[in-house]
């Protein structure tokens, strides 16, 4: 089943063409990994899917992006972002307690009793493998956690809203190998329920968790295929060169 159907997507920031006509389909319950050097448009692509690019006033978009067959511009930004969650490159807790961080999204959408919020927070913290570490200190500031814990809290915060799709924007770029492994493990478990798009600078991470992998270069999508195929027999020489570490 196709979750996101992106056709001929171009995004421009002023005179800079960040994406040049990308066509891509994201299937439900897969992990789509996107690799490529910096400035290749990976993050811009990700931020198109939940309409975060609109926050930049200079951004101009063309082409169509459909979520479950509905153009995303026909959905309000708030409703879209409730269905399409995002985890940022750096751990970005809000200046609130651990509990309030995890509960933030649910509370903003409203309509849930205190008990229901509490249950949803616990469930999300468990899904992000951080419950055991924080269950006794939920009232403490989220900034007291380590970087890896903060990032898992951010994942829990996104999960608590119960989106359909989660966009990961280089979620492990600032983390140690153990925290990275914990987050990758979480992702692999989550894909049974969620659709995941993972942008990563770490080629090996794409190989470990991606069902399919797309290679972006200078605003173009060079190729997309099953992860095994991309890493063993890429059809484009540039993909092979990038994976081998010849550039990037």
């Amino acid at each position: 089943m196709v979750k996101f159907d992106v056709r001929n997507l171009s995004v421009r920031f002023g005179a800079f063409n960040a994406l040049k006509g990308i066509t891509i389909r994201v299937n439900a319950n897969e992990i789509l990994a996107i690799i490529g050097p910096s400035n290749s448009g990976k993050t811009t692509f990700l931020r198109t899917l939940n309409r975060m690019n609109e926050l930049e006033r200079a951004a101009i978009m063309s082409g169509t992006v459909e979520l479950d067959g509905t153009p995303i511009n026909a959905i309000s930004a708030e409703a879209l972002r409730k269905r399409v969650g995002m985890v940022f490159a750096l751990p970005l807790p809000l200046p609130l307690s651990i509990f309030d961080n995890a509960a933030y999204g649910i509370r903003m959408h409203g309509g849930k009793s205190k008990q229901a919020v509490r249950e949803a927070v616990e469930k999300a913290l468990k899904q992000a493998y951080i419950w055991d570490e924080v269950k006794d200190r939920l009232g403490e500031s989220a900034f007291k956690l380590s970087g890896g814990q903060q990032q898992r809290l951010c994942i829990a915060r996104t999960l608590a809203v119960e989106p359909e799709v989660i966009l990961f924007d280089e979620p492990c770029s600032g983390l140690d190998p153990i925290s990275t492994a914990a987050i990758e493990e979480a992702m692999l478990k989550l894909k049974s329920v969620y659709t995941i798009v993972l942008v990563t600078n770490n080629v090996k991470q794409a190989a470990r968790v991606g069902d399919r992998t797309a290679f972006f270069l200078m605003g173009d999508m060079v190729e997309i295929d099953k992860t095994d195929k991309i890493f063993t027999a890429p059809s484009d020489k540039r993909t092979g060169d990038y994976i081998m570490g010849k550039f990037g």
Partner: protein
Amino acid sequence: MKNSKTTQKIAFFFLLLATLLIILPVGLIVVIIVVKGLPAISWSFIFDMPKDGMRAGGIWPAIVGTICLVAGAVLFALLIGVMAAIYLSEYARDNLLTRIIKLAIVNLSGVPSVIFGLFGLSLFVVFLKFGSSIIAGSLTLGIMVLPIIIAASRVALESVPHSFREVSLSLGASKWQTIRHIVLPNAIPGIMTGTILEIGRAAGETAPILFTVAAFYLPHLPGSIFDQAMALPYHLYVISTQVPNVDEKIRYGTALVLLILVLFVNLVAIIVRSKFRKKKKW
């Protein structure tokens, strides 16, 4: 080498001297007012009505008047100022209109206080028919402190990290929810700093209240915000220059009370600010 070190020492000495000179007037003001005013301070001086043409009795109505004026001015200026600052820093695009608004704010802060007094007289007292009243005086003082409150609020709002806004929006919160729950609470300490600065100015200014509220001699408390009231800075002016044979200690006592009052109001604001700072978790 030795020569350059000596030069440096001399330079440091003069820089230190200049800095110490700043302490001098502050210290002298406080010492003179405390020494000359303290003998006048008593319960009856603070809580009694003035008597004998202000040559005896207390200054209670002036204290109450000043508290009412400052409270009204700060309330009005915070309400309008914070809303304007939110609009300017969160919503407004950079266009001709917002540039005119920003220019107006800058110019407003350069207007002499006596002009605010005349403006308040013509708009609130005469045109809006409030008469000489606490509300007219408060609004006039409020407009006077507005530019600083707006400027401080804008800086405070803009210093809240952009990433907090992005995170909040990415979780499906609306722009207003983001401002209400994330941006504004984290901007409050900065807004309070601007407010604290302006409380002292609002309490001490004479010119803006001269035509809009201040009563020369009114030995009873105001009954409503549409009544005239006495105010400490104007009362001080009156007993210092307009009424003959006022005991020196009454004049300095009045000044001391004004100082303490401003200090006290600032203290409250500082406590509120530190409470919000403690809540700040980054």
